[in-house]
C-alpha cells in the first residue's frame, strides 16, 4: 500500500467523522432555543401587519426548508455551512461571515505564537533532560514541568497578572492594542506583541510542561534501543546519534501528542481569551452564548471542529513523513 493510498483512506475516514460530528452539531442547532425564522426577520414582526408578516414568515421558512423533513433540513443547513452562509448574528446585526474574520485572525495569531514558543523550548529541553536523565538538571525540570501542567491556566494567568501587571507593571492585562494608538508598520506590530506577551506566556507554561515530559519519555524509550548502541559503536558523534538517529525515531509519539495538544490549545484559549479580554474566537464564543447569539456560536464551533479534523489530516501526513512503516501497514 503506497503513501497516497494510505492518505486517501484516512481522508475518506475523516470525511466520515466530519459527517458524524456535523449531525451532532445539527442536533445542537435544532435544540437551540428561539425560532430561527423570527431571528432572521428581526424587527419586522412589530412593524408589519400580522397577515403580511405571516406570509413573509412562511416564505422564509420555506426558503430555509424548515417545513421539510429533518434529513432535508440537515442537507440544507450543511450546504449553507459549507458555502459560507453561516446565518445572521443578532448581536452585531450582520451576517456571521462578515464578523468572524478579525477574531479568527487574533486567535490564530495568539495560538501560532504560543506554538512557536512552546516547541522552541520544550523539544530541546526534552532532549537534553532525556540525555542527562536523573541528573540534577533533569530532576528539577521534572518537578517544574509537573507543576506547569498541573496548575490550571487561569491560575497561572492570575499569578502572571499579579507579577507582571500589578507588582512590576510592564505588560498590559487586556486588549489587543493600545487604545487611540495610530501606529503603522513595525510600531503597530510591536504594540500587538506587547499585548500578546502575557497570554502567550500563560499558554506556553502549561504547554511546555506537558510537551517536555512527552519528548523526554519518547527519547528515553528510543535511547534504550539496540540501534542506538550500534550507532554509538560504529563511532558516530554523540550529536549525530541523538539528533539524527534517536530524535527522528522519537518523533512518532511526539507527533501524536502535539497534534492533540494543538487542538486542545485552540479550545483552551477560550479561558485565556476571556481572562485577558483578547478579542478572539474564544471570547466571541462566550459573548455569543451570553447574548444568545446562536448562529455565531455554531459557526465558531464549526471552526473548532474543522480545525480538529485538519489537525488529524496533518497528523496522518506527518506520520507518513516521519515513519516509513506507515505506508506498508494496513
Amino acid at each position, binding site marked *: 500500500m503506497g503513501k497516497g493510498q494510505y492518505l486517501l483512506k484516512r481522508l475518506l475516514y475523516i470525511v466520515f*467523522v466530519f459527517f*458524524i460530528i456535523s449531525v451532532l452539531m445539527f442536533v445542537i442547532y435544532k435544540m437551540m432555543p428561539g425560532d430561527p425564522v423570527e431571528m432572521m426577520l428581526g424587527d419586522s414582526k412589530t412593524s408589519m401587519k400580522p397577515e403580511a408578516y405571516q406570509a413573509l414568515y412562511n416564505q422564509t421558512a420555506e426558503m430555509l426548508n424548515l417545513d421539510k423533513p429533518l434529513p432535508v433540513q440537515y442537507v440544507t443547513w450543511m450546504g449553507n455551512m459549507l458555502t459560507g452562509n453561516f446565518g445572521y448574528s443578532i448581536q452585531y446585526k450582520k451576517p456571521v461571515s462578515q464578523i468572524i474574520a478579525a477574531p479568527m485572525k487574533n486567535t490564530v495569531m495568539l495560538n501560532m505564537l504560543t506554538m512557536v514558543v512552546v516547541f522552541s523550548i520544550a523539544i530541546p529541553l526534552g532532549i537534553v533532560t532525556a540525555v542527562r536523565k536523573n541528573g540534577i538538571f533533569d530532576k528539577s525540570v521534572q518537578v517544574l514541568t509537573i507543576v506547569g501542567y498541573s496548575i490550571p491556566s487561569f*491560575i497561572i494567568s492570575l499569578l502572571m497578572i499579579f507579577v507582571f501587571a500589578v507588582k512590576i507593571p510592564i505588560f498590559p492585562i487586556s486588549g489587543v492594542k493600545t487604545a487611540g494608538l495610530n501606529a503603522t508598520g513595525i510600531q503597530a506590530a510591536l504594540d500587538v506583541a506587547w499585548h500578546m506577551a502575557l497570554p502567550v506566556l500563560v499558554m506556553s507554561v502549561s504547554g511546555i510542561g506537558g510537551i517536555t515530559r512527552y519528548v523526554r519519555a519518547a527519547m528515553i524509550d528510543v535511547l534504550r534501543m539496540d540501534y542506538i548502541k550500534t550507532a554509538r559503536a560504529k563511532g558516530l558523534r554523540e550529536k549525530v546519534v541523538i539528533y539524527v538517529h534517536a530524535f527522528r525515531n522519537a518523533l512518532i509519539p511526539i507527533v501524536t501528542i502535539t497534534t492533540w495538544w494543538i487542538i486542545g490549545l485552540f479550545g483552551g484559549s477560550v479561558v485565556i481569551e476571556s481572562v485577558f479580554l483578547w478579542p478572539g474566537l474564544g471570547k466571541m464564543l462566550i459573548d455569543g452564548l451570553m447574548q444568545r447569539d446562536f448562529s455565531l456560536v455554531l459557526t465558531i464551533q464549526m471552526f473548532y471542529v474543522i480545525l480538529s479534523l485538519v489537525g488529524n489530516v496533518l497528523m496522518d501526513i506527518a506520520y507518513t513523513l516521519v515513519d516509513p512503516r506507515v505506508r506498508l501497514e494496513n
Partner: protein
Amino acid sequence: MAKNKKERARRSTASVATQRMLIGGLPQEEKEDLQQSPMQMVAKSFFKDKIAVTGMVCFLFIFICCIVLPFFFPIDKYYQDVTQANVAPGFSMLSVPKALQGNAEMLSVGSTFSVGIDKEGNVYEWGTFPTAKLKNIPSSSETGKLTQISAGLDHVLAVNEKGQVFTWGNDRMGLASVPMELRTGGEKIKQILAGYQISLALTEDGTMYNWGSDYLLNIMYPEGVQGNIEKFAAATNIVMVLTKDGKVVPLTNKSSAYTTIPEEIQGKVVDLALTDESAAALTEDGKVYTWGNNIKNTLTVPEEIQGQVASIAGGRYHFSVILKDGSIVSWGDDTHGQASAPNLGSDKAVQLDAGYYATYAITEKGTVKAWGLKGYLMGTDAFGRDVFRRLLIGGRMTMTVGAIAVIISTVIGITIGGISGYKGGKIDNLLMRLAEVVSSIPFLPFCIILSSILGNSITELQRIMLIMCILGLLSWPGIARLVRGSVLAEREQEFVTAAKALGVKEFGIIFRHILPNIITVIIVNATLDFATCMLTESSLSFIGFGVSEPNATWGNMLTGAQNGQVIENYWWRWVFPALVLGICTISINCIGDGLREAIDPKSKER
C-alpha cells in the same frame, strides 16, 4: 538485595505504618520478598517514591479537610452580607486592648472593627478596618473628654461631656455634616448611634437628630413622637423608638414584619432592641416580647429567662440580655458564637453592647467580656461570605464532580475498550471509530455550548449532574484505547484459553478474568483523569459555564478575581482557592506518576 535492606531501614516508621495499614502487611518483612503479590510489590515501590508519598499526604489532607470540616464550619450557601464584604484575614476583631480592661467606660461593635473609650475618655480602636479614614481619630485636645461612642459600618460617632458630637471614618453620603446644634454642644446627649451609612443622636429632652444616607433608611417621625423619645434602636432598614410613656413606635410609614408590634405591651416597654429581621421589647415585669421574621431563631427567647431580664441589646441576627442577677444570656444565630454567652461566675454585667456579629459586656469590676465573631481565617469575598468555609464546601463540590465524571468515563471506557479488544473485527473497528469521533470533538468549547444550551432551564442540582455527565461522556476514549490495548495483549494468554475451555461466558472472561490483570493500568489512568476532570470543571466554572452560584467550587470562587484591583487589594480572595486547587492537582498528578512508575517496571530505568 543488600541495598534494598538499607533503603528499607532508612524509611521512616510513619511510612511503614501507613503501608501496613493500607496493604495489611505484618512484620514479616525479611522473607516476604519472594511471596509478595503484584499489588504488594506495587504498593511497596510506590511508598519508596518520596514525591508520590508527599503528594498522597497533601491530597489526603485536603480531601479529609473538605469532607470533615464543613460539619464544624457550616455555611448557609444563600447567605450574603455586604457589611462583611472584602474583609482581610485575621482574628483581631474581639481583641480588646489591655488598657481598656478594668477601665472601660463604653464599647461599641462596628461592622468588622470595634471602638471603645476608657474612663478618662481616651479612644481605642481594634479589628479589621474597612477604610483607612477610621484611623483619623480626633486628638483629645480637640474633643475633650468623650463620654459615649458608637461604631457603624465604616464610621464612628462620639460625644463629649459638653454634648458636642464628633464623627470620623467614612465622610461621604452626608455623614460628615453633623447638625449645627450638635456640633456646638450645650444640649445633653442621651444616646448616639452610628448605623449603616447613617448617624442618629437623641437629646435628653427627647428630640432625635438623624443625618447621613437615606437610601436604605427613610426616617419619618409620626405626630407627637419628636420630643417625646426615651430611647431608640436601629437596624439596617428601620429605626424604632421607645417613647417616654413606654410605647414602641416605628419611624416609618411602610408596614413590614417590624411594624406588627404586639398590642398588649404598648405602654409597658422599658427597653428595645432590633436585629436585621426581628425586634424585641422588654416590659416592666422583666419579660421579653419578640416579633418579626423568625430567621436564625431570633424570635425563640429562652423560656427560663422570662421575668428576670434587666436590659436587652441586639446584633445582626442575635439578641443579648443582662438578667437581674447580673448574668448574661444570648440567643439567635450562633454561626460565629454570638449566641454563646460566657459564664461570668461571681462577676456581674452592668453594661451590654451588641452589634453585627458580636457582643461586649462590661462587668462591675470593669473587665470586658467579648463573644461572637473574632474574624475570618481567610477573609471574605465581595458578598461578605467566609472564604474559608466556601473553600471547604467548594472543595467537596470540585472533588465530587471530578470523581463522578471519572467514574462515568472509566466505566464507559472499560466497557467499550473491553468489548472492542476482546471481540476484535468489525465491532472493534466500529467502536474505535466512535472513540475517534468523540476525541475529535473540541472538548472545552463543546462543554461550554452543551452546558449553556442544556443548562438554562434546570435546577442547580441538575446542572451539577449535567456537568458531571458532560465531562464523563466526553473523556472516555483515552481509557477505552488503553483497555483495548491491554485486552488485546492479555487475550492470547493461556489462562484465557483455559477459561474458554471451561465454558466461561465471554463477558465473564473479559470482566472477571482479564480485567483484574489490567486493573492497575486503569487505576493509574483514572487518577490522572481525575486531575484533568477537576481542572476542566474549575475552568468551566471559572468562565461561568460550570457549577454556578450560590454553589461554591474552587473554579467559581476565582471568577471575577482576574481584575487587577482585586488581585492587588483583595489578595485573599484569589490566593487561597488558587493555592488549594494548585496543590490538589499537582498532588494527584504526582500520585498518578508514582503509581505508573510503580506498576511499570520498564519505567524505573527512566
